[in-house]
C-alpha cells in the first residue's frame, strides 16, 4: 500500500514516461478512477487554473489536504534522491549550472517563483524528463542532446514546471482513495524523515507513472506561455515534440514514452487548437549561440 501511494505522488513527464509493468495495473485503476472523479467541468478560478477546462484535473491548490509546502518539498526531495540513485547527474558543472539558470528564469514567470527550484541533467540515454513535487526537475542526457537552442530547453523545462505549479501529482493523490492514508502519514512529517522514506520507498519507480493526458496537454499549454513570458520563442517545446514525433519511431529510448503519453502529433494538434493566432506577434529569442552543448 505504501508504494501505491508513492506512485501517485510523483511521475515523470515531458513527453513521456515509462510504462507500467504488472505492478502498475492496480495503481492504474486507482488513478483512472481518481481522474474520472476529477474531470468534471471546472468553474472559473485564478490562474493558472483558468486554463484547466475541458476535462482537466481540477481542485484549488488550497484544497490539497494535509500536504504543507514543506511536506511537498520533502516528498520531492526524497523522490529526487531516489531518481539520482538510478541515474546520477552528468558530471559537467557548467551544464548543471546552465540548466538551473534557464529553469529558474522560467520558473520565475510562474505562480511559484520562490519555490526552491532545482534542475538537472541526468545520465541516461533515454529521452525523458521528470518532475517531482516541490520543484525538482530533471532532463535526461538523451533528451538534452536533441535540443538545438536555449528556447527548446526552456520549453522542456517549462513543461515540467507546469506540472509542479499545478501540483498534478499531488492532486491525483488527493483525489484518490488513498488520500486519507497519505494525509495521515504526511501530517506527521516535516522535512526528510523515515515516514517520507517509507512513503516514497527506495525505488525510483515512482517516476515511471504517467499522468492523465489532459494534465500533459495542460503542461504543454503552460510551457509555451512561461517560455513566452520569459522572452523566449514560445515554439521551443513544439519543436522538440516535432523532433520526437518525427525521429523516434524506431527508437527504443522512447518506446515506453509513446505507450504512456499522448502521441506528439496529438500534443501538437492540441496545442494548435489552444494557440490559434494568439502567439503570432510574440517573436522571442532562441539563443542558439548561448545554448550549452554537452561535450561527450
Amino acid at each position, binding site marked *: 500500500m505504501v508504494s501505491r501511494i508513492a506512485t501517485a505522488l510523483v511521475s515523470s513527464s515531458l513527453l513521456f514516461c515509462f510504462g507500467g509493468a504488472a505492478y502498475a495495473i492496480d495503481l492504474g485503476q486507482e488513478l483512472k478512477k481518481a481522474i474520472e472523479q476529477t474531470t468534471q467541468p471546472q468553474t472559473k478560478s485564478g*490562474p493558472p487554473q483558468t486554463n484547466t477546462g*475541458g476535462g482537466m484535473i481540477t481542485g484549488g491548490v488550497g484544497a490539497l489536504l494535509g500536504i504543507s509546502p514543506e511536506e511537498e518539498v520533502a516528498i520531492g526531495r526524497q523522490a529526487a*534522491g531516489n531518481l539520482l540513485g538510478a541515474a546520477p547527474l552528468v558530471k559537467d558543472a557548467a551544464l548543471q549550472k546552465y540548466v*538551473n539558470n534557464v529553469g529558474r528564469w522560467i520558473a520565475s514567470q510562474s505562480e511559484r517563483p520562490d519555490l526552491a527550484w532545482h534542475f538537472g541533467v541526468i545520465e541516461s540515454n533515454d529521452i525523458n524528463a521528470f518532475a517531482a513535487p516541490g520543484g525538482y526537475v530533471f532532463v535526461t542526457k538523451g533528451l538534452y542532446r536533441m535540443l538545438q537552442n536555449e528556447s527548446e530547453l526552456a520549453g522542456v523545462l517549462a513543461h515540467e514546471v507546469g506540472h509542479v505549479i499545478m501540483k498534478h501529482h499531488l492532486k491525483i493523490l488527493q483525489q484518490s482513495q488513498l488520500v486519507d492514508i497519505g494525509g495521515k502519514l504526511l501530517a506527521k512529517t516535516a522535512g526528510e524523515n523515515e515516514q517520507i522514506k517509507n512513503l516514497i520507498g527506495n525505488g525510483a519507480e515512482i517516476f515511471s507513472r504517467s499522468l492523465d493526458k489532459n494534465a500533459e496537454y495542460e503542461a504543454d499549454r503552460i510551457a509555451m506561455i512561461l517560455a*513566452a513570458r*520569459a522572452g523566449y520563442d514560445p515554439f521551443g517545446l513544439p519543436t522538440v515534440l516535432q523532433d520526437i514525433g*518525427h525521429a523516434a519511431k524506431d*527508437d527504443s529510448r522512447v518506446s515506453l514514452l509513446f505507450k504512456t503519453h499522448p502521441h506528439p502529433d496529438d500534443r*501538437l494538434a492540441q496545442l494548435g487548437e489552444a494557440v490559434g493566432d494568439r502567439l*503570432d506577434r510574440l517573436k522571442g529569442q532562441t539563443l542558439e549561440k548561448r545554448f550549452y552543448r554537452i561535450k561527450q
Partner: protein
Amino acid sequence: MNMARSLALPLAAFLLAGGTALAGEAGTALKADDLKAEPFRDAKTIGSLTSGDSVEILKRQGGWFQVKSVKGDGWVRMLSVRRGEARKGSGDAAGLLGLASGRAGTGRVVATTGIRGLSEEELKAAKYDEAELKKAESFATSRGDAQKFAAAGKLAARKVEYLSAPGAAK
C-alpha cells in the same frame, strides 16, 4: 521566392539564429489549414492543406513552417504539421538529428523489455543517493541570478496570458 533565396535563407537563418533550417524535410499536415503567402495571419491565403497532405518543409520562422506542396508553396502554422511521413506509414528514415540508433528497433509502439537507460527495473532498484541530491541542490540558481542570466541573453520578461484548453469557455 526564387530558388537561390529559398536555399540561402535557411542557412542564413540557422547561422543568425533567426529560424531553424529544415531544408527539404518531409512533413504531413495534421489537419486542414490555410497556406499563406507570408508567415502572418493576415497574409494572403494562397491555398489550403487538408489533413494528411504531404509537404516539404523548408524552414521554421516563429510558429510557421515554410513549405512546398502540390497545393502551393507558402507558409503554414507549424502546429498544423508534423515533421516526417504520416503517422501510420512505415518507418521513417533516420531522423534529422541522427536519433535512429544502431540498435534493433522494436519497430512499433509496444511494450518493450530490455530498454537501456532508466528502465522500470532500474528505477525500481534505485537507492536513495543523498550525496548526489546534495550535489544537484548545490547548482541551484537564485531568482536574482536567474534575472541576471536572462538580462545577459537579452531576455525580457513580458506579460502573456495563459491559454485556455481547447473548447473551454473563456
